């Protein structure tokens, strides 16, 4: 790196630098400089257009790679030499139970077979999707709650199941929006809720026709707890890094919303 890396002088056009334009777009500009940058952009539509293009590229990056969160691995992890390396075996087991649990990996030719009933698999998918998207700052949801009607119609159509977005407001959680995910078995939907302190809960569901109805069950993946159940062809999970009591209250409300 040379000193010229930090040289953002905008040439003859005045004091606003290239770095400041990016910082403005990223919400990292000190408030004192905002007015100057906005004035600059108003007078330089080509710079405004360029920033618009950067922003679209950033959105495209976020959207294009998002499906990787739940995309199945094309083949099993390929190296069979784990057995004599305990740390490697443990790492392999983690992959199986997290990424693998979510996406259906299996170890070829021996090893710890991950035989998981399909509802538990949904719970793991829910926990994995929660860990990925609940930490998102910029793109937590695909369709925001202000388009709730569109969101609900869209997810209903893709899942082939009539949905309404359950209300968790009595628990202090407001609907942020939702997204469609894809797993090996087909489409899945995630609805995200947030409370005043920024804690997030996600409701995850997909069709799971081979299961029969169950009571509420609990699964834990890392910090995320998922409470899940199966009801008339659909497996539901509610996931969050919160205490079980709150999850249970939320689960009862979600359950009631679909059985009233």
């Amino acid at each position: 790196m040379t000193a010229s890396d930090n040289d953002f002088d905008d040439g003859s056009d005045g004091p606003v630098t290239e770095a400041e334009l990016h910082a403005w777009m990223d919400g990292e500009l000190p408030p004192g400089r905002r007015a100057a940058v906005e004035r600059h952009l108003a007078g330089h539509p080509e710079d405004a257009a360029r920033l618009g293009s950067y922003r679209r590229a950033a959105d495209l990056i976020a959207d294009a790679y998002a499906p990787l969160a739940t995309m199945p691995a094309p083949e099993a992890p390929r190296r069979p030499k784990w057995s004599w390396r305990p740390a490697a075996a443990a790492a392999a087991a983690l992959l199986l139970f997290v990424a693998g649990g979510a996406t259906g990996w299996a170890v070829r030719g021996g090893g710890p077979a991950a035989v998981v009933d399909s509802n538990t698999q949904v719970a793991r998918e829910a926990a994995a999707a929660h860990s990925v998207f609940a930490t998102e700052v910029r793109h937590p949801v695909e369709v925001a709650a202000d388009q709730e009607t569109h969101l609900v119609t869209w997810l209903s159509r893709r899942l082939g199941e009539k949905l309404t977005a359950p209300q968790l407001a009595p628990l202090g959680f407001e609907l942020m929006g939702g997204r469609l995910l894809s797993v090996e078995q087909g489409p899945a939907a995630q609805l995200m809720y947030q409370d005043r302190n920024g804690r997030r809960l996600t409701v995850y569901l997909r069709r799971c026709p081979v299961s029969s109805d169950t009571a509420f069950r609990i699964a834990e993946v890392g910090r995320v707890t998922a409470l899940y159940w199966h009801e008339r062809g659909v497996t539901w999970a509610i996931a969050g890094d919160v205490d079980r009591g709150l999850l249970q209250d939320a689960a009862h409300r979600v359950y009631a919303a679909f059985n009233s």
Partner: protein
Amino acid sequence: MDGAAPTAGEIAAMVPRLRRYAVALVGSIPDADDLVQDVMERALASREALRDPSRLYAWLLAILHNLHASGHRRRRRRGPEVPVEDLADALALSTAPTDRSAVRDLVRAMARLPEDQRRILLLSALEGLSYRDLSEVLEIPMGTVMSRLARARERLRVMMEGGEQQVVRRIR
């Protein structure tokens, strides 16, 4: 639990997010899965070394970058680069038909960026890291964060919009 090493479960919870980043960085799902497995192995073996649990993800990213840098050299010795077309196809198929060609173009363009520019673009746009976090994770000063991000964005824009033309003169 300040000062306590992360548990295996806490490390495991990061796998989906780490895997998404690894695939985007490496440009190949199978290679990224190998890489993430190596990162997990290294992290589990040395988790006592992490003193600040709130930096778990940044620590995993640092391990990933180190392993990838050394593994990358190995792979170059081995022969041709992994094809990004498989990933471009896989991601295009998971997206709405109207966005497919943009997704393909993006995946191809990202593969042609220098590694340091690909990292910063992904950490910013995909991982949502702030400038401060970028500086910490990439171990570069703030000034370099901003200049590298600006250069990476401009280079990607030129590739996406104009093919192989000259990269802007305004960023020297």
